[in-house]
C-alpha cells in the first residue's frame, strides 16, 4: 500500500515536471517562431528594395554601355526568378544568382570611365551596395533566430511534440558564402 503510493507520487511528479517543461518550451517556440517570420520579412523587404532599384540601374548602365546585352539579360532573368521565388530555398538560390549578375553589371563600369563618373550611377551603385549589405545582415540575423528556434524544436522534449503543435524546422539561408560579397566599385582612383 505504502510502496504503491510512493510509486504513484514519483510518476505524478515526473509527468508534472515533463508537462511543465513542454509548456515552457512551447511558449519559447511561439515567441521564436514569431521572430523567425519577422526576420524573414525583413529579408523580403530588402530583396524587394533591390528589385525596385534594378530597372533604374540597368537603364543608367545601358545609356553608356549598349553592347553589354548579355549582362542585361542575365540581370533581368535573375530578377524575374527572384520575384517568382516562394520558399526560403528558392529565394536563397535566386538571391545568389541575382547578386552575382548584379556584381558583373557593376563591374563593367571599370571599362566605361564616363559611366563610372556618372553621378546617377554612383548613387545607384551605392544604394545597391547598401542594399546587398542589408540583405547579408538580414540573412545573418535570420539564421541566428532560426538556429535558436531549431535548437529548441529539435531537442528533447520538443523533438516529439514540435510536429504535433505544427512547428516546422526553420530553414537556413546558406547559399555560397561568396554570394554575399557586396559588389564594389573603386571610386577612389
Amino acid at each position: 500500500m505504502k510502496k504503491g503510493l510512493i510509486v504513484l507520487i514519483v510518476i505524478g511528479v515526473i509527468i508534472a515536471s515533463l508537462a511543465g517543461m513542454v509548456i515552457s518550451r512551447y511558449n519559447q517556440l511561439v515567441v521564436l517562431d514569431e521572430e523567425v517570420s519577422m526576420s524573414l520579412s525583413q529579408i523580403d523587404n530588402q530583396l524587394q528594395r533591390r528589385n525596385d532599384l534594378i530597372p533604374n540601374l540597368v537603364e543608367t548602365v545601358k545609356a553608356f554601355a549598349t553592347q553589354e546585352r548579355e549582362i542585361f539579360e542575365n540581370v533581368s532573368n535573375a530578377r524575374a526568378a527572384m520575384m517568382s521565388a516562394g520558399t526560403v530555398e528558392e529565394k536563397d538560390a535566386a538571391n545568389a544568382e541575382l547578386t552575382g549578375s548584379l556584381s558583373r553589371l557593376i563591374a563593367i563600369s571599370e571599362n566605361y570611365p564616363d559611366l563610372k563618373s556618372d553621378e546617377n550611377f554612383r548613387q545607384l551603385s551605392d544604394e545597391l551596395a547598401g542594399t546587398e549589405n542589408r540583405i547579408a545582415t538580414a540573412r545573418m540575423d535570420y539564421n541566428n533566430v532560426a538556429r535558436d528556434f531549431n535548437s529548441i524544436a529539435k531537442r528533447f522534449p520538443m523533438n516529439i511534440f514540435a510536429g504535433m503543435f505544427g512547428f516546422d524546422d526553420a530553414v537556413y539561408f546558406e547559399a555560397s558564402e561568396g554570394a554575399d560579397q557586396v559588389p564594389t566599385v573603386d571610386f577612389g582612383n
Partner: protein
Amino acid sequence: MKKSITAILMLIVILVMPVTFAATYPNHTRDFYVNDFADVLSSDTEQMIMETSVALSEATGAQIVVVTIDSLDGQDIESYSTGLFREWGIGEEKKNNGLLLLVAIEDRRSRIEVGYGLEGALNDAKTGRIQDEYLIANFQAGDYDAGITGTYLRLAEEVYAEYDLSVEDLQSSKAYYNPVETKSDSEFTIFHLLIGIVVFILMILDLIFNRGRLTRLALYALARGSKGSSRGGGFGGGGGSSGGGGSSRSW
C-alpha cells in the same frame, strides 16, 4: 552515484552554455565618440568631435562615433562595421539613431554606417557622396585628420538638420562636455592624514605579528577593484543597432 551526479551536472553546464560566435572588436575608449586606435587624429580634432558628439547626444540621443583602426585583419569592412556598431550599441535603443565613421588605414578602406533611425536623413548614396567629397582627396594626400574632420562635420550637419537643430543651438550647449580629467581630486585634509597614519601603523603591526597577510589581501582587493571599475565613468553606447545601411569607399 557520485559519478552520475557529476555527469548530470556537466550535462546541464553544456546545455546551458551559450553558443557564441567569436568576432572580436576592440573595447571603446572612455570617450566613446572618438576612438583613434590608428593614431591619426590631432588632439584638436578629437576635442572638436567630443564637443560636437556629446552635445548632440545630450540634445537628441543621436550618437556619432569615429573609429580609426590599423587593419581589419582580413575581414570585410561592411561586416566589421555592422558588428562593431551592434557590439557598442551606437545610438538609442528604441530610435537606433547612431552613426559610425570607420577608417581602416592599412586596408585603405572607409565606411559610414548608418543606424536604422537615421537612414531617412542619410541614405546610402548620400553617405557615399560625402566620402567622395570630403574624405577621399584628403586621404589620398595622406591628410587623415582633415579628411575625417570634414566628413564628420558634414555628417553632424545632416543629423542637426534631421532634428531641426541649428549649429548654434549645439554650440551653446557645449557646457555638457566635461573632460574626465577635470574632475578635481578631493582636497587633502588633516582627516586624511590621520587615516593615513592609522593605516600605516596597522600595516606595520600586520607585518610584524601577522606576516602581512591582511596587507596583501587588502592590496589584492584594491587591485581587483580598480580593474573592475576602470571602464566606469566616461561615455557609452545607448544600445542602438544597424541593419547594415551606409556605404564604403577605398582610396
